[in-house]
């Protein structure tokens, strides 16, 4: 597992589809490569703009933080994990709705995340409809 460092330059205008109306930006933060591969495509099929980051730090250092309408966030990551990122965004005053995704079934953490203001909690593997519902909720809440 190598850490990826890429400079994420945020641009709302996605090349896929080239749709003129503005798409809401959904950021995916997960250190799992398969998720970063598959999820953004699905999100684009949903009609969102999607960007993937391999770590919380990468996301924070990008300029997509302000424009993200929803954050799909993995819980378990090396260095800063999902909950830490949630706290960090809160302390920065960024009110970004978060949907957690994780393979780990831990009720306490689930509850803690929800208490901290997460929109939803999805367990991998999740169906596409589940993720779509969560996203809609998140985006409309914003």
């Amino acid at each position, binding site marked *: *597992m190598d*850490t990826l460092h890429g400079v994420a330059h945020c641009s709302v205008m996605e090349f896929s589809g080239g749709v003129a109306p503005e798409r809401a930006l959904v950021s995916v933060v997960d*250190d*799992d490569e*398969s*998720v970063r*591969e*598959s*999820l953004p*495509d*699905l999100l684009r*099929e*949903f009609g969102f703009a999607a960007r993937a980051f391999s770590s919380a730090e990468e996301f924070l250092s990008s300029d997509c933080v302000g424009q993200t309408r929803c954050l799909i966030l993995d819980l*378990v*990551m*090396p*260095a800063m*994990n999902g909950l830490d990122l949630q706290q960090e965004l809160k302390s920065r005053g960024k009110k970004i709705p978060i949907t957690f995704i994780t*393979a*780990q079934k831990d009720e306490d953490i689930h509850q803690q995340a929800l208490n901290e203001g997460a929109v939803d909690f999805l367990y*991998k*593997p*999740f*169906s*596409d409809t589940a993720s779509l519902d969560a996203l809609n909720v998140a985006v409309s809440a914003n």
Partner: protein
Amino acid sequence: MNSTSESGPRQIIETSGGTHSSRRKQSAGESVHLRRFNIGPRLSLCFLVIVVLMLAGYGLLLWQFHLVRIRDARSSAVGQELIAVSQFQTDFFRLTARLDELAKYDDLEGLKKEAQPLSDVLQRDVNHIRKVISRLPPDLHSDRTILPTIEAIRSTLPSQLERVTALAEAADWEAVRLRLANEKKPLETEVSALVRAVEQQVSTELAAQLMETTRSQQRILIIVPSTALLALAVAAFLGLVVMRSITRPLGRLIAGSKALAQGDFSHRVPMEGNDELAMLGEVFNDMIVRLQGLYRDVRRSEAFLAEGQNLARIGNFSWLVATDEIKWSEQLYRIFEFEPGVPVSLDLIGSRVHPEDLHLLNNMVEKARHAADKYEYEHRLLMPDGSIKHLHLIAHANRDREGRLEYIGAVQDMTQRRVSEQALERARSELAKVARVTSLGVLTASIAHEINQPLSGIITNASTCLRMLSADPPNIDGARETARRTIRDGNRTADVIARLRTLYSKKDTQPELMDLNEATRETISLSVTDLQRNRVILRHELADDLPPVNADRVQLQQVILNLLRNALDAMSTVEDRPREMLIRTERSDGDRVRVSVKDSGVGFTTQGADKLFEAFYTTKNDGMGIGLSISRSIIEAHHGHLWATPNDGPGATFSFAIPCEPQRLADPQTHSPTNPATGSA
């Protein structure tokens, strides 16, 4: 604890445990002064006092004698005086009488012839008197008239005689007679008076002398007996005192020695003074204290020994071969379960020895008959209740004081240790099995997790594919891509399952030529989720030129997995620094391959270092701690070794190295960690 004496004012110091209070009965006075001297001077002083007293008595006596002698001398002097004067008187009267007579007969011839000699006689007498008087003590010269009178007589006499003679020659006999008569009377009176005076003196002196003598007699009668009595009394007293001053302390010393002989170490000999006996007492007390200490030490040593024997279940024995006299320590009685004190014989011993081991007993007796230097046996006892004890016996030969052969030995009851060893072996094999099962459990969780990842990718990709194909127009390229990813993830899942099957289906060691890097990567992937969950940043540096090794893949992966999990656990409490793990493979020492797992966890201390690899040792409160010991066994079975070193910074690095030359792997049955350990009991 000893009585001490000081050079200055003496002090009696009460001793502890002293039962003798007779010391109090002594009057403080006499002992004080006497005790300052040693015995020699003390006795000498005694004698000196007696001698001085006697000399004083003699002195008094002599004095009395001296007084009497003086008196005597005086009397005799006065007596002499009297005699001389009387003689004078006699001679004078003779002279006058003779002259009268001569005159009566008108004897001129006779007169001339006798007058002078008679006068000479008188002269002589006067000289004599003068001499005697000169010898008188001064105080008797009281009567000064004597000498002058005599002198007068003496001086006039010759002239008188001349005149008388002249008259006689003139034949004037009447005148002669007349003259004689006239001269005679006053002279006679004077002479008589003189004599009387001297007689008076004499009688005075005699009376005085008598009185003096009587007095002296009385004094002597008093002095002698009283001096004798005094001397006797003092001698007796001093003798008694001095004797007591010696016999009392001696008595106390004797009492002390007796007490000591009877084992009373608390007794002390009280002594005062600083003479030889006091020193002896002090030395004696010192000796008692020393003995008491020694005795206490000996008792304590005995008690320790007995305790030690008890704890270690070791008993001692001695066996005098010639008489078959056997002595046992208490612990040995307990081991054999006989009443302590029961006389021990070879038959008694044989009654307890396990029937199958009796031949060893006979063997021992044989050896003893041949005066073997030493012997050692392990045998069993069969107790009355049927239980079996394992004994280990060692003895060596000794010669007692009379030169007879004697064996001194020790017997240890090893039953518990044997039993424990067997239990331990069973437990180890059980736990080795359990360890696999447990790690299996943990692995299962991470495996499930592992499979979830690609599965979730499959579902997402498939969903995306469907949507892409349903779009208007359908996104064929996108769909193709998602389908590809789906297949890939499906294969990945199948891989994981296949790997796990191989990992846990194998029972026996199957050495194969394998790539350690690949095995490491597989193991890492199995643990990835665990590492993620614990926020561990894992780096790996796998050498490119790593040669293949001939090893059991499953076992080595187990070892790497164990090291990974240990590193993980070591960092589970770390909060103040990043949790970093580094897995490295490399060539080492030319013909070996090394794998190391470095963590930034809590590390270990040098004391912990030795225990890390012990079976059952663990610092985790939910772990079983056998992983490292088994891992080491696996690596050692591959002719390698496993070790741990603390890092320069926080944490530790666990490494193992195995040779990469193809070697015949040791048979798992004899080298697996579940077999009983060889080695001395």
